[in-house]
């Protein structure tokens, strides 16, 4: 019973997250501004991380946690590098 409930709830969450990922992808594709795209990429990463967490719950495997942790820690590096590039014209300044 518990397993069934959790299975369906997890499935629902996964669906929501992947739909969210889809929304972010649409924004990423449509733009219009570069900032919009960076934001969308950031969102993609968050949704991806959540998907991994839920997968970890479903499969009772701690391994997914590591990937999620890494996204939480470094998912922002790409988007902040992009943001800095947009802001300053170079990622690493003298």
């Amino acid at each position: 019973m518990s397993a069934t409930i959790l299975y369906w709830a997890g499935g629902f969450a996964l669906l929501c997250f992947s739909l969210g990922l889809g929304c972010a992808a649409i924004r990423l594709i449509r733009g219009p501004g570069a900032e919009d795209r960076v934001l969308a990429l950031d969102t993609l990463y968050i949704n991806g991380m959540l998907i991994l967490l839920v997968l970890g719950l479903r499969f009772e495997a701690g391994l997914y946690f590591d990937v999620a942790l890494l996204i939480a820690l470094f998912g922002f590096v790409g988007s902040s590098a992009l943001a800095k590039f947009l802001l300053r014209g170079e990622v690493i300044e003298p």
Partner: protein
Amino acid sequence: MEWILALAIGVLAGSGVWLLLRPRTFQFIMGLALLGYAVNLFIFAMGRLRVDAPPVIDPAWADPASYADPLPQALVLTAIVIGFATTALFLVVLLASRGMSDTDHVDGEEHRA
């Protein structure tokens, strides 16, 4: 799942090849990146797909059938790293070429009409 992954590989490979056929160096490098994803997924797929069976073994239960094929994964790891390295190198060559030839055409010169 198989057909989804197959389609994904196809789309990635197609976009990658399209970009490799384009004349600008940056297009080429993006093509390399996309084709790289496709190839990595392809290698991975050669181990057949397994959901919820990571190759981290329970010492008491080392039945190969209950784990995903680890070997393609190891190969993909190598391929990812090598791909990263070559992308970096190509990027720098691209920059050097742009700086020296004043064009970002892959041939180092514009082919005018």
